[in-house]
């Protein structure tokens, strides 16, 4: 089942509320993601916590990428090429769980988000496709 890459990529952009980690995003976010990886080491986490701005200055990112990280604006970070598994190192260093960090991207409070998950999660109904609206 071989697929044309252009059709394949176009479909990935058709999902509401979702940024699929395509080559285009991966290339744009290369240094953001590499920065996040650096927080897997204790000594780097200590330097980062001591002075976030100074730590970010060492990484060749755009100003808006740096700002999105300082703001912990995860949706913006995804737009600028971040990937959630890399960015997990940032929120782990902040002491946040996946639920706490992920809920910030949904416009819901942590409590409301957790209640939604306990009630069975978010239904895919109406969220499958931008173009078909199903």
């Amino acid at each position: 089942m071989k697929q044309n890459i252009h059709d394949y990529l176009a479909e990935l952009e058709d999902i509401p509320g979702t940024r699929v980690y395509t080559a285009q995003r991966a290339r744009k976010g290369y240094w953001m993601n590499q920065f996040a990886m650096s927080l897997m080491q204790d000594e780097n986490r200590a330097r980062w916590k001591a002075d976030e701005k100074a730590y970010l200055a060492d990484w060749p990112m755009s100003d808006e990428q740096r700002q999105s990280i300082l703001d912990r604006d995860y949706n913006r970070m995804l737009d600028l090429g971040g990937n959630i598994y890399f960015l997990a190192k940032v929120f782990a260093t902040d002491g946040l769980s996946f639920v706490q960090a992920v809920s910030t991207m949904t416009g819901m409070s942590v409590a409301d988000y957790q209640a939604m998950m306990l009630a069975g999660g978010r239904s895919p109904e109406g969220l499958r496709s931008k173009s078909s609206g199903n």
Partner: protein
Amino acid sequence: MARITHGIASSHVPAIGAAMDLGKAGEDYWQPVFAGYEWTRRWIRDAGKPDVVILVYNDHASAFDMNIIPTFAIGAGEKFAPCDEGWGPRPVPVVQGHPDLAWHLAQCLILDEFDMTIISALEVDHGLTVPLSLMFGKVDAWPCPVVPLAVNVVTYPPPSGNRCWALGEAMRRAVTSFPDNLNVQVWGTGGMSHQLQGPRAGLINAEWDNRFLDRLVGDADELRHIPHIEYLRETGSEGIEMVMWLIMRGALGKKTRCLHRHYHVPASNTAVGHIVLESVA
């Protein structure tokens, strides 16, 4: 001669590992998650004890950063330490490898036209250690060696479901030509429905997940033809991990029988699915 007798699939949610490590498994929230693994823990202690597990998982930006993105990588080292994912390494045993079987698999698979990446120095993350904890519990040493098989499901495109299934089939042929008398299990991990990013995060599709579980059993093979976009639309952006279950299914041969099945929502952001399959033919 080595043989593949059983396959296990399971979600590998990091919070499950944390719940075990912090002694929270008995809490009301977690109890129904773990209850579904009790059967498997008993079974794997005696009747179902493997000599080696080939553990299919994905690295979550732990061992592999953006400098290297292997589609299929086989861990051929002597041992694999749990890595620090930002919270410190999980307090679980170091994973012992099986370099003889791993190198045999790599050689066979490459001759069989699967261009594997071979890795000797590899640290493993929750994708690999959480399934071990779920099946074997809290132990001082894992009861058997493990051959890690890491699949890229992070940077697009991941391998197709069909390619994963075919890799499983090739793995079955490769294991069968290994001279030692070994009972080998293949575990497929990750999934089920979940989305960890964007305004659509929290998506769960129990109906789709359960249909997927249904179709792992028996002799049907239509799961191999599900396109990536269906996983993404129906099961969330991280639901794509389920292609890794198809490597396990492909490795069990033409027909399977279900020994045990479990499904629960939620664990953290994720639908937990678990199935134990026996190879029938």
